[in-house]
């Protein structure tokens, strides 16, 4: 079975206009352990040193690191660095690919005294309105272009993904983190977060269950160009509930099924559940974080960081020996 190793470095730097006396932050930066994803080693460097740091799992099973500062600070630098091993996600069985979408929709509906399986009950959590994802007939109408009557769920969901990719332009200038999904839907443009929210709205509006997936994606430098440190970004995609299989992942930004290039941090109902960093400050003034993400395959690791003076000294971990073992 094939597998790949990646090194991911995700740096966030806040420089506050005014001194902050007290602050709390929640970090969702630990990659999730999955059958096809092994978190080989994870290191979280936080400066200045927090007064309190602890971790716990949120209600969706994502690991949260909570930090609290009770002394003056005028900056916050968080570096999350990890090695991860990816294998292929399991393929849906032939049976699973044949299930009509309406029967999945009906299986998620409530009927008095009908018991839900644990999988179905978990799926219903991702079936309703959430803070950033509305449910509306316009999304349903748009979804029905792909969700034709009787069409198998997987085929229809794949078609919807391609439909969004075809109809929407990738345009980082069109939206910001908190732009409502309606605006991106109207404008037919946005970034991965918008594409994912729109696809989720479409799926939920026709009664299906869909998750917002948060993580990273391997980028490919243009032909003849070298990979650059800090040139990547966090990524988002979608997963739809398929009974007897689980959650089928779909990336509407790139019109593909996530495979060996999508690294998963975690999931939630939408972005608001899985924001990588969230905090409350006492003071601070205005500030915009500087974020730098670098995803590098193991074989390019040495050439990317090897001759770079800046990062080598700071690298806190090296490829673990287990990662070299093709077992």
């Amino acid at each position, binding site marked *: 079975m094939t597998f790949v190793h990646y090194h991911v470095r995700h740096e966030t730097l806040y420089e506050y206009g005014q001194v902050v006396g007290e602050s709390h932050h929640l970090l969702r930066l630990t990659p999730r352990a999955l059958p096809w994803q092994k978190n080989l080693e994870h290191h979280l460097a936080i400066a*200045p040193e927090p007064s309190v740091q602890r971790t716990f799992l949120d209600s969706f099973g994502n690991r949260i690191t909570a930090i609290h500062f009770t002394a003056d600070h005028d900056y916050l630098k968080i570096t999350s660095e990890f090695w991860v091993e990816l294998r292929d996600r399991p393929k849906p069985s032939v049976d699973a690919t044949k299930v009509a979408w309406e029967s999945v929709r009906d299986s998620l509906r409530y009927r008095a005294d009908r018991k839900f399986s644990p999988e179905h009950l978990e799926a219903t959590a991702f079936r309703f309105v959430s803070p950033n994802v509305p449910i509306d007939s316009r999304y349903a109408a748009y979804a029905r272009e792909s969700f034709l009557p009787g069409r198998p769920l997987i085929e229809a969901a794949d078609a919807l993904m391609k439909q969004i990719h075809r109809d929407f332009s990738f345009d980082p200038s069109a939206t910001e983190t908190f732009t409502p999904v309606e605006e991106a839907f109207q404008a037919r443009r946005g970034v991965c977060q918008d594409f994912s929210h729109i696809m989720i709205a479409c799926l939920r509006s026709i009664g299906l269950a869909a998750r917002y997936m948060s993580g990273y994606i391997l980028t490919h430098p243009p032909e003849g160009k070298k990979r650059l440190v800090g040139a990547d970004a966090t990524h988002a995609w979608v997963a739809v509930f398929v009974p007897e299989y689980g959650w089928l992942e779909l990336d509407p930004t790139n019109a593909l099924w996530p495979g060996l290039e999508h690294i998963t941090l975690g999931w939630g109902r939408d972005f608001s559940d899985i924001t990588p960093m969230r905090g409350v400050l006492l003071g601070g003034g205005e500030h915009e974080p500087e974020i730098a993400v670098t995803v590098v395959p193991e074989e390019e690791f040495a050439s990317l960081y090897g001759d770079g003076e800046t990062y080598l000294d700071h690298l806190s971990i090296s490829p673990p020996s287990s990662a070299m073992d093709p077992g």
Partner: protein
Amino acid sequence: MAKQHAVTDILRQYDPVPDRFDELGYKGSGPKPHWRPLLQQLNLESVDGLNQRAQAVADAIAEDGVTYNVYEDPRGDARPWEVDLLPLVLGAEEWRWLSSAVIQRAELLDRVLADLYGSQRLLKEGLLPPALVYGQAGFQWPCQGIQPAGGRFLHLYALDLARAPDGGWWVMADRTQAPSGAGYALQNRLVISRAFPAPFHNLPVTNLSDFFQGFQNSLASMSPAGTESPLCVLLTPGRFNETYFEHVFLARYLGLPLVEGRDLTVRDDTVYLKTLQGLRRVHAIYRRLDDGFCDPLELRADSVLGIPGLLGAVRAGKVLMANALGSGVLESAALFGFLPQISKKLLGSSLAMPSVASWWCGEKPALDYVIEHLDELVVKPAFASMRMEPVFGYQVKGAERDALIRKMHAHPHAFVGQELVHLSQAPVWQGDRNRPLAARSIGLRLFAAATPSGWQVMPGGLTRVAVDEGVEVISMQRGGLSKDTWVKARYTTHSKSLIKKRLQVSDLLEGERDTPSRVGENLFWMGRHSERAEATARLLRAAFNRLSGHDQAGEYALHGLQTAAEQFGTLREAEPDEVPEPLPEMLLKAVSDPELPGSIASILQALLLNASQVRDRLSSDNWHTLNRVGKPLTPPPATPDQSIRALNLVLLDCISLAGFAMDDITRDASWVFLVIGRRLERLANLCTLICVPLFSDRFSRNAMLEWLLEVANSEVTYRTRYRRTPEILGVLHTLVMDASNPHSVMFQIRQLQKDLPEMGRKTGQLFPPDLGECMERLKAVDMHPFECKDTDEPCEALGKLLEDVRSEVYRVSDEIQRQCFIHTRFSNRSVKPH
């Protein structure tokens, strides 16, 4: 027989609608027995006499309102609370049944919450649709899996009841989050029991104080206090909340500190109250803040009312929340249809008291039924968070009706159809001689509190009255007409109030304990802002007075004033490539533009904001002066002359405020912050002002001495001392070294060296900040070099020293903020290495 006649006398023209239940039971066999003592009393008096009594009731409410209005914003439009002279009276048998039904429902809802935030068996087994949990904003995901401290989710539960024509009670709504009304019910009781002492004792009426005592004791005993003495607080959203009156009232009655989110802090998963004496651990929070607002870190990020990290403390089991965070999920009429089954499952018994018949449209047959029977139903939002008004089916016609039906088809989960209930009627005092009583529809809100030995129901409640005769609907808005609710006791009890009858010596000693940090902080900033307003007003007045000067010296003087104003942050410095606005225009804005930072108007605004936070510590004269001080700035003065006149008025009020600060405020632990705030601000301003000439060339410097004395308010001191035109040596001595001049640098430092240790004693700080080094350096200044003609060098040296003093002022101010108000540490390790 005479009595019987008398009873019917007061009831002449009392005419309840025939097909409604009459609480009085008048039309049947005559008034029910439990109403008789009250009716007999009414008949002993004339209608005029009773009208006087009604007026006394209204006056008592208004009077208490005045007491509470103290806390209200001057802009606030607090609605008067209206109480009917007549209580609703309930019999002992009926009460026994009602309270057992309430207890059953409270217990049921507590278990439903435990299930929804725990194993979710109800969802798995199909007893409750996931849409009613996952599909609404009331379900707080971050609370999933939390085991509440104290073992319960519900601590104070309320429900709204209506009585159907057959006399049966129906539940109209559940209040599981932060129910309001218990305080109003208590307030009604205090007033109405005084209006009718005889029937109150003759019935007799069950007292309410045991209930509150029980609630208070339970919070303490169920809280995770361990061996510590438990500290419970009442958390309020603040004085803009519609029921703030009740928060203040209950906090006083229960003896709980009334706190806002920013009064609390979470350290290491433990909640603390910030006091001037340090952090005090909080063990239980009786909250009047809705779920979503309680923790901006994990719940609504836009909440400024909550406590960041509270959920962490809850998760760690370190604080009892009454009620548990997330309990708002049950405030949904959509649940009603599922409760009978759930009751059988969780309690093993049927629901004693039915909910009003409700159809949740998320189920297709229910949706069809509701649309078909729209005229007989009320359509309501399924969830409290939806903020939609109920719609009476028979009232919507045509296009409006079609639109409603379309919406219901599009979002069936969001709607509930509910049967129209014909409410029962009770007599309301009209005061009309021919028709003293009128029949009006009523609804009843009851309350239950969890205690270690089970639920206790408040023997009474808040009866709410429809706005008019013939009106079926009771407005769900707060306010409106209400009634006291009397429950006939089965035996006489001794009434006892939680309010202490007389002061005790231990009360006298409590004066200095646990002053919330917020009080000190606002007094501190009141001090700083009022002093800053005064200094800025003097500075601007001096500038206006010199605008028309034409000679070189006048130019120098004005330029110096402009520099000083820039350093005060009152005038903006022009960018190098910017054409500056003409000075007169800039000065006019610096007086009256509230949007301009550093303007008089904006400083006074900040001052008023600080003052309103400590309104209860200020005398009414002080408060009036504070409200008046900015008045001369509206309408904004349009010319320099008008500005000078306005500034003169502002200055007079500033001087009054200074007097109040010294003479009019109780000298407790918080007062010292007001004084220190004033001194620090004055000291910093003096340093800034004096440095302007010190860092100027010789010619400009001499031209600035006159305004320097004027702005530093030391002309008189200088003149009486030296009787000559200002010279540098004399001016510097007066403003810097002269410890007898209350406007000198030395004077401020000396006072602060007394006030800061005093603050340390009052707050228990071992090492209060201090200015000893500044004092030593100032004492060592040699004034002789200022006798020479060329004073550039000593001026620069003194200027640098004063700049250091000013940095020290800022350090001390920051240190006070950290140590006494926000309770954090100073750290120089956290400055980013570049």
